[in-house]
Each structure stands twice: as structure tokens, then as C-alpha cells.
């Protein structure tokens, strides 16, 4: 229903931001992970967002935006952080352990950005809702 376009747009943004919070959670949980299915230490993951466009129905499209979608979850290509710990079972011959290259401050900043964006989009939904309710009050008095 075209009536709820702003709901759909902000809803897609909420889904995208939730995924970003999930990746931050995964990055923070795996700060010390040295074993992964692909081998080697865990790699920091980030999400890439893309604009979602509507299919063009009429010749002069009035409004094309239909929210946001997650285009990809990419892995950080930077080399892992090496730490000297010969007693660790995953240490190499020289005694160095490869830990994920995750910066705690960076992750926390990402988390704050994601949660603020989530809040902003819920505000949009609430504003749209109160606007609709105001419209329903037309002619009541």
C-alpha cells in the first residue's frame, strides 16, 4: 500500500542498522578468536549499504527511493595483529599468535552510530504515524 511508504523505507533502514549492530557484536565477541572455518584468525566484518530503488511504473517517476538494503558483508583485508605468546596452541614456530585486527574504540564508535541511526529511523516512523493520526482528525471537531 502506497500509504505507508515512509514505514517501508524506515523499516528497511531498521533492518539494515540491526545487521550493523549484529556485525559489531560479532566483531567484539571474536576479538580473541584465532580459529575460523576459513582458517586463520577471525577477520573484522563490515556491512555495505546500497540504496533500494522501486521498479519504475509510470514514465515520469515521481519518487524512486524505497529505502536501503545491505549489499554485502565484507571482511577487513588488513593483516592480523601478531602477539608473542609461545604457550598458545595456535602460535607459529616463532611463538607469535595471529589475533584479529579489531580496534575496540572503532567498534564502539560503529555501535554508537548504528544505535543512533536506529533511533533516528524509529523517530521517522513515529512522526509519520502521528502525522497520519493528525490527518484522521480532520473534520472531527
Amino acid at each position, binding site marked *: *500500500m502506497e*500509504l*505507508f511508504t515512509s*514505514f517501508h523505507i524506515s*523499516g528497511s533502514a*531498521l*533492518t539494515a542498522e*540491526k545487521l550493523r549492530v549484529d556485525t559489531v557484536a560479532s566483531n567484539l565477541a571474536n576479538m580473541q578468536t584465532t580459529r575460523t572455518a576459513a582458517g586463520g584468525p577471525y577477520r573484522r566484518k563490515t556491512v555495505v549499504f546500497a540504496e533500494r530503488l522501486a521498479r519504475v511504473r509510470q514514465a515520469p517517476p515521481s519518487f524512486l527511493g524505497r529505502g536501503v538494503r545491505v549489499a554485502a558483508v565484507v571482511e577487513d583485508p588488513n593483516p592480523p595483529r601478531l602477539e608473542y605468546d609461545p604457550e598458545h596452541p595456535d602460535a607459529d614456530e616463532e611463538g607469535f599468535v595471529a589475533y584479529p585486527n579489531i580496534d575496540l574504540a572503532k567498534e564502539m564508535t560503529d555501535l554508537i552510530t548504528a544505535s543512533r541511526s536506529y533511533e533516528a529511523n*524509529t523517530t521517522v*516512523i513515529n512522526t509519520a*504515524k502521528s502525522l*497520519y*493520526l493528525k490527518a*484522521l482528525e480532520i*473534520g*472531527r471537531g
Partner: protein
Amino acid sequence: MRINPYVVPLSPTEKEEKKASGPATFGDLFQEALQKVNRQQLEAEEALQGLISGEVEDLHQVMIAGEKARLSLQLTVQLTNKVIEAYREITRMQI
């Protein structure tokens, strides 16, 4: 809460007849709108059931579905009120 799908969809022959006879009446339009509202109520209920049974991961989608259902129901109530008000206005008319 169980919402009965009480709005019976028009059969295709009936629709075609109506189309042939002229433009859609207010009743038809209202019937269609009611069906949409009912569908949204059912969608909201489905989303809620999905959340309870653990199928839906996004909490906000459930809330949005609920809000959509609530808003469209309120719109319907307002429209019905308007129609009834107009009807009363006519019945009160002095002859």
C-alpha cells in the same frame, strides 16, 4: 485475537458485470478498502505469531505491521463514521 476473513471477495463474473455497467460504485471501493484493511490485520497477526514462534527475527517489522493495521483500521472507522453521519443528516431532513 482472531480476525475473521468476513469480507468475501467478489467473484470475477460479478466484477466484470459491474465494470460493464459503468464506473465502480462507492460500495465497491469501500469493499475493496475493507479487504485491504482486513489483510493488514491478518498480516499483523501473522507477524505476531511469527515472533512468538521464533520465526521472525526483526522486532521492528512486527511493530510496523501492527501500526499499519491499527492506522488503516482507524481510517476505516473514520470513513464509516462519516458515511453514517451523512446518512443521519439525510434522515433528519424536513419535508
